[in-house]
């Protein structure tokens, strides 16, 4: 083996080892033992910064163990526009994302129990194309709402998304109307719909199902807003404060019921559900 390849692979192994042991907090920049970070539900033990977690990790810490049954897991993107951008075809991006995450879409849906209460759940996963809302994700979110409707059980939806998926064009935009139509039917049948907004919940997802929960809950520090910070700064020609579009900012302006730490979320959801007198 030539020397330079050997050195490169050695360096990679060393870096990987380092990555395996340490995590750097995005907020306080402290180096944290990865295992401590994971044990603390991907929350910085020093400053309380909430890192992202995967859909299955979320399900694991929210539902009673062994109760989750996934539905519609085979739904995955097609390429209705034959979309190609500077980095190549959409289909390749989807395949790369599927390989990386083991998911078929940006949302995992199913049913399960919270302290014994049956619920339908949808959990978005930011790793899959930035949690973007495409046709397949819209369909899964609608079908989970329909399941809640048919079985008259509460619907809990965790958002983590940059917004509508550009690669499916207008069809992605229409998913906003589609998912909201599902929510609207729950309202009519008086079925609780709880929206949990996690980092980030922006664009078309904030402007559809994420903002119309009977109860809107967010995790601390989550980025929540409609328009992007840069676009707004260009429009109003002034710099926005760091606190702009945080969960706390949105709470202060009246669009959230509460901001709840990840470790307390399950208990909070259970308490709220206990008031549903069906």
């Amino acid at each position: 083996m030539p020397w330079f390849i050997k050195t490169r692979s050695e360096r990679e192994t060393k870096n990987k080892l380092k990555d395996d042991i340490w995590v750097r907090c995005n907020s306080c920049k402290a180096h944290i033992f990865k295992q401590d970070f994971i044990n603390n539900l991907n929350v910085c033990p020093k400053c309380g910064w909430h890192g992202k977690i995967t859909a299955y990790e979320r399900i694991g810490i929210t539902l009673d163990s062994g109760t989750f049954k996934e539905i519609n897991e085979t739904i995955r993107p097609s390429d209705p526009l034959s979309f190609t951008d500077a980095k190549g075809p959409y289909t390749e991006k989807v395949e790369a994302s599927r390989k990386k995450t083991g998911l078929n879409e940006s949302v995992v849906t199913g049913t399960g129990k919270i302290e014994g209460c049956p619920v339908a759940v949808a959990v978005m996963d930011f790793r899959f194309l930035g949690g973007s809302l495409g046709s397949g994700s819209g369909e899964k979110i609608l079908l989970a709402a329909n399941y809640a409707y048919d079985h008259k059980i509460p619907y809990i939806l965790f958002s983590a998304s940059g917004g509508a998926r550009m690669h499916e064009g207008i069809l992605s935009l229409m998913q906003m109307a589609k998912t909201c139509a599902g929510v609207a039917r729950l309202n009519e049948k008086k079925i609780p719909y709880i929206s949990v907004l996690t980092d980030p919940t922006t664009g078309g997802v904030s402007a559809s199902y994420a903002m119309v929960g009977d109860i809107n809950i967010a995790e601390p520090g989550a980025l929540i807003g409609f328009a992007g910070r840069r676009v707004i700064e260009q429009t109003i020609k002034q710099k926005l404060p760091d606190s702009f579009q945080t969960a706390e900012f949105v709470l202060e302006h009246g669009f959230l019921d509460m901001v709840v730490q990840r470790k307390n979320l399950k208990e909070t959801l259970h308490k709220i559900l206990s008031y549903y007198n069906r």
Partner: protein
Amino acid sequence: MERELDFEKPIFEMQKAVEKLKSVSGDNKENFEVQLGELEKKLVERKKEIYDNLTPWQTVQVARHPRRPVFFDYIKNIFTDFIELHGDRCFGDDQAMLGGFATLGKKKVMLIGHSKGKDVEENLARNFGMARPEGYRKALRLMKLAQKFNIPVITFIDTMGAFPGLDAEERGQAEAIARNLTEMARIEVPIITVVTGEGGSGGALGIGVGDVVLMLSHSIYSVISPEGCASILWRDASFSPKAAEALKITAKSLYELGVIDEIIPEPPGGAHTDPQKTAEEIKKVLLKYLKKLSSLSTSKLINKRFEKYCSMGKFTR
């Protein structure tokens, strides 16, 4: 001098030739009349040819044409007895979103739309048709009023998008649009939507959940502006023409994707060359669908709307 778009140059040149011929022909008219007639015929044909073959990016230019008819023109040219209703009962009266009672033929309707201006001054007053949360909330208030009065709702879409401003975020732009999408799904009167110019993303959809959705032939409707898409996916706004093509934002594409119900033809040369004729075409189609929708019972209407939006999208199972 009228502003011309690049691809309109041949049309303008022919128009100049026609004018010239007209001015010369003053004395010996007969000699020129045949020639003039032929040239005018050719002009119409050329206009049609050019406008039938616009690229998506050229269509964007037409949809944003400074002389393209705005909501006020349609109110005037299609409806009678417009009674404007103001305010969202919460915060203010958004001038970028207008609405009120109006009469279409003999039908009483609730009319709502994005309101762009005709010049800079008016555009500043109307925020270029970019509504704030109070605009969307006013629209929803009027839709619920229409439900109470049992009259159909007609919405006109023409906006770059919902206003991306600090105040709009503070007052819940996302919530306002989301609320409209949710409530519109169950409004108990027919809703007809016409995209007349720019259908800019969530700001357009916020009044666009219709039982029937129509588009003028040179309007556009997109999840993101071509410029926005180009700067994100190509990291360079100069790729906007490419993004416009990739996003499939023309009326024809939306019809093929099953998102809209019908394309309303514009006169050759675009809506701005004949606002009156454009209005007549829209009126004809609106009356047709009003009649069609009024025959449905309330429950049928709402179920059909639900199914329409449930069936949107293409994916693999």
